[in-house]
Structure formats: structure tokens, C-alpha cells
């Protein structure tokens, strides 16, 4: 961490401040932002929308993966959609989304679209990796669906689910802010980034970037902790 800061400081002395803010300038800007009441409303605005998109993607991704894991035909039918969603550039989605939604809500759709295939693919991979002999045991004992879910599938998929959620949230967060940057809805993190860039407030731009990284890191950890706690509760 200290080495990274030192390196940042060295680089900033070689490049004009207008193009590259120093750690000190960034810290000052960060403190100033933290002192503003609107700062928290801005972060909350963006966080709520991206979390909503991510949550919807998580729920739908889990349901679709369960369906695809159970019925091969469902996996085959879903495959072209998931591949398309994964391959289409974020910018294309954002441009299309602006035709349908207000700029304030585009980040919900974009984060949803980014997270959905990741949650789906990871969970489906976990379901497919479930020990066939355990499933054979469940068939022999005629274990009902919900108990299979708890005792056989959940232990098998939890690693895939946790890593999928972590990757999916990171992507949803980044893409959601990119969507805000393009649509710059009022009072959003992306909108603030855009303004800072427009007015060449480089220290603010860096400070907002630090905030984006921190909020992403903390939220991702909280989501992982919550999911681990839920899994632990189910496994009790």
C-alpha cells in the first residue's frame, strides 16, 4: 500500500497536476467531498440503483440456473441469450437503454445485464459439478427437491456462487457507473465523475475514483459476508 502511494506520488511529480493529481491533492479533495451532505446522497443514489440491478440479476440468475440444471432443453434455449448478453459491449447496451429508460434508471438495467450471465454461468457450472453419486443416492431415497437443494446442491455450488457473486457485483458496479458517466443523471457518482472531467477538476476525479473503489470493495465484502451467513444458516 505504502509502495503504491509512493509510486503514485513519484509519478504525479513528473506529470502536470491538471492531468494527474497527487495523493495529497486527492486526499484533500476526498476530505472536502466527505464533508458535503450531497456526497452521501450521491453515493446512495448510485449504490441503490446498482444494487437493485444486481439483486434482480442474482434472483433471476439463480432461478434460471436451477431451471437449466434440471432441464437440458432450458439450458439450450437460454444459451444464445446468455452468450449475447455476455458479448454485446456495455456501450451498445447503454445506448439502447437510453431509448427506453430515463438516464437515472439506465444503471439498473446495465448492472442487471452485466451480473446476470455471470451469476447464471457460475451457478450452472456448480450444479453440473454436483457429485452424480450423491444425486443417485438422493434418487434412491426419493429425497424431495427442497432437501436436495439444502443437503446436496448447496454444498456443491456454494463456492461457485460466492465467486460468481463477487465477480458479478464488481462488473455490475463498474458498468453501472460507466452507464451513469454516459447518461450523467443528476446526483449520481457517474454524473459527478463527468462534471469533474468537464471542468478539469482532476483531484476531484481521482477522489471520486478512490470512492468508487472503496464503495465497491466494502459492498462486495458485505454481500459475500451476507451470502456466507445465509449459507451457514441453511447448513446448520
Amino acid at each position: 500500500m505504502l509502495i503504491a502511494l509512493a509510486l503514485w506520488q513519484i509519478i504525479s511529480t513528473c506529470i502536470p497536476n491538471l492531468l494527474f493529481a497527487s495523493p495529497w491533492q486527492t486526499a484533500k479533495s476526498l476530505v472536502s467531498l466527505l464533508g458535503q451532505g450531497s456526497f452521501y446522497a450521491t453515493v446512495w443514489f448510485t449504490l441503490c440503483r446498482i444494487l437493485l440491478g444486481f439483486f434482480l440479476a442474482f434472483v433471476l440468475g439463480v432461478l434460471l440456473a436451477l431451471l437449466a440444471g434440471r432441464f437440458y432443453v432450458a439450458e439450450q434455449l437460454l444459451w444464445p441469450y446468455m452468450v449475447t448478453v455476455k458479448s454485446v459491449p456495455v456501450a451498445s447496451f447503454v445506448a439502447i437503454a437510453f431509448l427506453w429508460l430515463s438516464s437515472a434508471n439506465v444503471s439498473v438495467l446495465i448492472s442487471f445485464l452485466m451480473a446476470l450471465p455471470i451469476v447464471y454461468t457460475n451457478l450452472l457450472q456448480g450444479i453440473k459439478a454436483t457429485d452424480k453419486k450423491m444425486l443417485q443416492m438422493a434418487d434412491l431415497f426419493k429425497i424431495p427437491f427442497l432437501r436436495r437443494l439444502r443437503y446436496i446442491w448447496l454444498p456443491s455450488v456454494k463456492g461457485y456462487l460466492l465467486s460468481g457473486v463477487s465477480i458479478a457485483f464488481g462488473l455490475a458496479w463498474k458498468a453501472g457507473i460507466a452507464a451513469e458517466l454516459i447518461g450523467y443523471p443528476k446526483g449520481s457518482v457517474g454524473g459527478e465523475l463527468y462534471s469533474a472531467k468537464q471542468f478539469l477538476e482532476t483531484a476531484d476525479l481521482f477522489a471520486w475514483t478512490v470512492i468508487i473503489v472503496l464503495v465497491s470493495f466494502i459492498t462486495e465484502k458485505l454481500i459475500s459476508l451476507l451470502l456466507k451467513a445465509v449459507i451457514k444458516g441453511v447448513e446448520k
Partner: protein
Amino acid sequence: MIKLKNIYKTYDGKPVFENFSLDIPLNKTYCIMGESGIGKTTLLNLIMGLSRPDKGSVEGVPPKISALFQEDRLCEPFSPVSNVRAVTGKSVPQAQIISLLADLGLEGNENIPVLNLSGGMRRRVAIARALLAQFDLLVLDEPFKGLDDATRERVAAVILTYCKNKTLIVSTHNIRDVALLNAVQINL
């Protein structure tokens, strides 16, 4: 009566059964004997319907089957009690599960995740699960694997109390198990 008629079965490209037939009257205990690799597990799988014969038929198998597999096939992060519950749901009282686990020498280990238990303990958890599931036919594949002589006798006694008037088919390569279970010997 369970009837295996003119069974042909290959496993990994090797013929295991060729025109094999066997009648197994119900409500008795049987020990299927034979050296390793002769097809004991394949025969049990055919009886349980877990694999199908290439040719021939298996008839008269009771609908309610419980089993102990060659591997323990336990739900690793869960306790012995939960492993039984995975199969029985709430149809079996907690006290009965704990009592059976104690009879099998697992007292004090009822709530430890099975992944932390020794091989012999895990085997007995799998046996408890098989005994508490509802069954008319109980199939046990090498039930005493990893158990010492004293535990083997204790476990055999418990198995017999749960299998009165039911069909029990055990695969083993230990001739002493036939006497221990008072079983009819079937040589492969």
C-alpha cells in the same frame, strides 16, 4: 421373490454377467460373496435399479429400497443427525436418531460435521441413514469396511434388529459376515 433372468451386463467394456440368473426369496438375509471385481456391486446396482442390464430382466424388487453404497455418500458439511434427516425428513423423531447413533457407537458425535469424522465413524453414519429410511429391501455394500471386529459385531446386531421380516442383501468378501448376519450365502 426377486428374479434376475438371463442377465447380460458389461462394465467398462468388460463382460461382468453373461446369461446370469438368480432367484432371491423375500424377507431373508443374504450375503453375496465373491472376490473383488467379480461384480458384487454391479449385481446390487442391478437389483436397486441404479443400472440396467444390457439384456435380461430384474423383477419382483420391493418398491421401498434403502441402501448403503460402496462409498459413504454423505452430505459432508452436515452432522450425522442432519445426514439422517436429509433422507427421513421429520418422519423419524430426533431421539430415535440419537439412540441409533449411540447404538452404533457414535455417542457424542451426533452434531459434528461428518467431514470431521473418521472413516469407520462415517461408515456407521451411512449405516444409520440406511436403517432409518423406510424400506422393504435393504442393500448393504461392504457395510463393515473400516470397522474393527468388536464394532463389526455391534453394528451387525443393530442391523439385524432393524431388518426383522425384511429382505437384507449384503455384499462382502469376508466369510465370517455370513455367520454374523445369520445369512444365506450366495457365491458369485
